[in-house]
């Protein structure tokens, strides 16, 4: 499907055609990718419900999607209520009174008194059911189906705009929210007073719905709100890195050994940072493609920085437990994988020029955030070799590791911190040097033996 980005599209349908229009729009939303594309609008008239709670949630999670659907339903029309009607046994889950079908999108409910629009799907369900009961009370149950004329409904809506209509409130109501709900119900003919003089139970229900809806919106994750707090955490981590460096072991090993109080502090920043970015990645995932793409580029820099800074700490935690192996396959958190994937998709940044990287390598972070996992694996291989196990494949893995490290060094993609005296990498080198003996020669061993790494910064 090709969607030009300058075309404003309206998808519409009546009755079953409306359901098809909804499905078609869903299809279309998936394919809208380019930024700047105008959003389509789906307007259905008297369409039956099409999906269950799963569909409802999938659409409600995304504000933009939910508001792309406008369902017009007349109170006299049976069709939109058919799959939610308490009188319809097929619409109920087996052995319970809970309906299977759930509404989504925005509903414009119309009656001869006026119209009101509802957004919260819970409230829409309540009102549709209430409408059904109300109509059933006044009509014989075996009413014949007939095509409802929505042309007349729209015409009436247009002509009554300049009328005050029924939007009068005779009772004394203090609370604006309640007053609003009463008005809405009046407009669709549901503000029937109970015989006993009690207030309509539907009002209380809707009030509750609205309260929940509003508070849900308020609780929504706003990434920019806490960004500065997280930047503070990053600055603190950066400082930790610096202090660790002055102790000649690099922040990875500092954290791994956790010898001092400051290492324990790091645990707290790390936790808040990880929570923030996990939530952020999840939020981005929930967005439809177009928003997701622009969102990603905005936050990618921070996310990459975070990944390079914090993932080594996770690796340290992982390998601290004895016998754990293969972090990349078993221990890596999903959000790191996503962040890395987005970076790749965004294309190479300008900094890929080796010259500028060389100039600044001492200040930057190791590009491959899984570097330390490779080191840990190599350490394990060395251990195996010393114990005389699995000669062939183990050696092969170690040579692969050598090549990998050399590659990184040539590209200036690793931080010089790995060459600090107390680092795990140097530990590995010591082990490895012993294992391979003096006669073995490779690019990396040359590099290490000739102490060229001292000039790597």
């Amino acid at each position, binding site marked *: 499907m090709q969607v030009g980005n300058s075309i404003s599209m*309206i998808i519409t349908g009546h009755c079953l055609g409306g359901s098809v229009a909804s499905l078609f729009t869903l299809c279309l939303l998936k394919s809208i990718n380019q930024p700047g594309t105008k959003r389509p609008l789906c307007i259905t008239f008297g369409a039956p419900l099409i999906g269950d709670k799963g569909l409802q949630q999938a659409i409600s999670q995304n*504000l933009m999607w939910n508001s792309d659907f406008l369902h017009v339903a007349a109170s006299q029309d049976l069709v939109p209520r058919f799959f939610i009607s308490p009188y319809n046994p097929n619409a109920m889950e087996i052995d319970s009174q809970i309906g299977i079908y759930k509404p989504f999108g925005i509903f414009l409910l119309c009656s001869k008194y006026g119209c009101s629009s509802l957004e919260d799907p819970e409230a829409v369900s309540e009102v549709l059911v209430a409408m059904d009961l109300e109509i059933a009370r006044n009509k014989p149950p075996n009413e014949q189906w007939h095509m409802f004329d929505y042309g007349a409904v729209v015409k009436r809506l247009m002509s009554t*705009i*300049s009328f005050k209509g029924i*939007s*009068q409130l005779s009772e004394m109501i203090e609370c604006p929210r309640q007053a609003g709900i009463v008005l809405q119900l009046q407009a669709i003919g549901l503000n029937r007073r109970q015989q006993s003089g009690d207030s309509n139970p539907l009002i209380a229900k809707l009030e509750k719905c609205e309260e929940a809806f509003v508070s849900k919106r308020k609780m929504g994750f706003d990434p920019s709100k806490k960004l500065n707090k997280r930047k503070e955490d990053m600055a603190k981590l950066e400082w930790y890195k610096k202090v660790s460096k002055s102790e000649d072991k690099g922040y990875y090993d500092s954290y791994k050994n956790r010898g001092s109080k400051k290492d324990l502090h790091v645990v707290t920043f790390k936790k808040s940072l990880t929570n923030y970015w996990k939530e952020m990645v999840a939020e981005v995932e929930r967005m439809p493609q177009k928003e997701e793409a622009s969102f990603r580029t905005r936050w990618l820099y921070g996310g990459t920085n975070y990944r390079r800074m914090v993932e080594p700490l996770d690796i340290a935690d992982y390998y601290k437990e004895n016998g754990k192996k293969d972090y990349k396959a078993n221990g890596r958190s999903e959000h790191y994988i996503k962040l890395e994937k987005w970076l790749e998709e965004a294309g190479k940044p300008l900094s890929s020029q080796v010259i500028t990287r060389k100039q600044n390598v001492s200040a930057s972070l190791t590009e491959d955030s899984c570097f330390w996992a490779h080191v840990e694996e190599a350490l394990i291989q060395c251990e195996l070799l010393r114990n005389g196990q699995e000669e062939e494949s183990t050696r092969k893995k170690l040579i692969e590791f050598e090549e990998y490290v050399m590659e990184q060094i040539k590209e200036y993609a690793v931080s010089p911190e790995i060459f600090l005296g107390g680092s795990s990498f140097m530990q590995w080198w010591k082990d490895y040097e012993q294992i391979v003996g003096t006669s073995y020669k490779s690019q990396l061993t040359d590099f290490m033996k000739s102490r060229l790494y001292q000039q790597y910064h």
Partner: protein
Amino acid sequence: MSEPFSVLDKRIRFTRLILFYLRKGREEARSGCIVGGLTLERALSLTWIKVKVESTIGKYPKRSFTSLHNNFQERVQNLKQETFYLLYDLKIKRAIIINQAKLLNREIFSTSTITVVETMASERLGEVISMKEEVIKNACSIAMKAHKLPEKQLYLVEKNRGSSDVIFSFPGSWTISDWFSRSPFGEKMIDPHPPQFASLRSIGNDQVATVNEAFLTRFQAILPQLQSEVVKAVADRKQIVFTGHSSAGPIAVLMTVWFLENWENFIKSDPSTSRMPPICVTFGSPLVGDFIINHALRRESWSHYFIHFVMRYDIVPRVLLAPLSSLEPELKTILDFLNPKCTIHIQEPTREASALYVTVMRNASSVASHAACHLMGNTNKLSDTLLSFIELSPYRPFGTYVFCTGDRELVVMKNPDAVLQILFYSSQLSSEVEGPEIALRSVKDHFNYQSELQNLETKGVAHFDNLEGLPLSSNVGAAGLGLVLNNLGLSTRARLCLCAAGELEKQKRRNQDKINKKKTDIEKGLLALEGYKTRCEAGRVSYYDALKLSKDTDDFNANVRRLELAGIFDEIMEMLKRYELPDEFEGHREWINIGTRYRRIVEPLDIANYYRHLKNEDTGPYMKRGRPKRYRYTQRWLEYALKISAGSSGESCFWARIEDLCLRTINMGLFEDVKEEILSLEKQVEKWVQNRELGDDIFFEDSTFVKWWKKLPQQHRSGSCISKFINN
């Protein structure tokens, strides 16, 4: 004050008193007068008065309550009592609240005195809008007279020998092209580098106002002729009044803005000139521009100089809410009908009036509903999605509106969001039958201002300062404010919108309070960073370079401080961007100063951090891509306040420009390419250092700047205007 109630320990007498007031209250509530003693319930349902609490129970400090309603509710919650009496002494205009339960124990636990600041009928319009009724009436008749001016005369000046007023008025115009210069709404953005209307913008957001092009053009045609007359009137120490009826209203408005912008110059050139602010009164004026106008006028505290009178049904103030294409033929006929100079007799245009009325109402409804969505904090994007299908009018009201109900009341409204809603809702019909009659009235009322305002002094004035607690129900027996709202034709739905407008205004004030509370944190952060700067200077290092290297704990702490401050300022900027702070915010001198101090001390650190992390490599140069809003906005604040050109206060970005030049001049062969830029920067640096806007720590021997500068060609350096600062 306690004197009238010194007898209160005599219980019977007191009860009688209460009964008296209760009765009196009921009677007077109907006539819109203030109520006497009532139970809480009755008081809440019947009355609406504005009170000022003079002395209060317990911990309440002396402060002004905007409504008794809130006052009552707070008290009830606080004291857990069910019934209170509000006693109002009509003679001295004071009321007393008494806790009944305590009273029955024969001891008055506490009483509090309330001075009634505002009651409905006791006030006159002149007092509410601080303007003499005589001036309003004069202005109205002169505005009408101006319509009859001969073709070539573009304005009318009216000086009364006895009075100190000089009234300028303008003739209306009755051709469509003088209302809509083009489709759909005939608006035009004000020139962003203007000789005129520099104030009509949102400063931080750098968004200029949009005004109706046709009105602007006409204003520009009239101004050169009028200018000298205005200057003369000012020199004569006269009260300047600009007025206009119908399409002359916007001319009066633009003239007033022009006057206000140049007022300072008038005073400067002749210190003896009048310092009396101008007045702008319009009658049935169409809207002038978009919401920025209101934003800007409020920020400058000019908003209250503008008074707009609008008849409940007058179509003209609403007409620009509809696009030209929807109403062109009808509007043409109606304008011909309205034109006082039109010599041909035209029959009452019943059909056109109806069509025009329906079109305008339909479009007004869209605009009002869209605005209401925003007022109610609706997060629903449907109304935004719809905007790609329907174009909505950008025009919004500003200033003080006085709505004439056509009955005995005037409704004064200052909240522009509420005014927009009233513009739509007040001319809604109650039944279909009314249609043709109201439509015709919507045209004819346009010429009824003079008669409506004839007995201005006798009219009741309802002044809506507090919108959140409006009586929502519109039942027939309403009294007091409820009655006025009924007479203005506001349905419950309309009232809900007004409540929401009030709530939004209150929320903006709360946001500002929240931000004001952060001042101490900001102060602390700035002091810490200033200390950091001084410590660095003591070691002959610029704090910019120190942070860029980040060697010590001190540098790290400074970086954390920087981020803490960034958090506070980012929040403020985000609110400004979404217009969630009161419009006045960017006009507060104190905040401009805080912002400038913050920018000068902290921005170099942001730049240092930016280049330390090499963000320029993946994001681009700081100035182009990386500069945060918190500095762009605060710089604009200062430049606007000092009336200097945009970009001239860029001293805080000094380091970013150096870093950029450093990168571009790695190869000195390119010197000629950047020579111009370096020369202009040097000139600016000289000025900034001399004005102490930029610290001389930039000239330390090892600073990034000096190191770079010394690499420039000798020939250039010896002739440079800043060589005197640098130790060669």
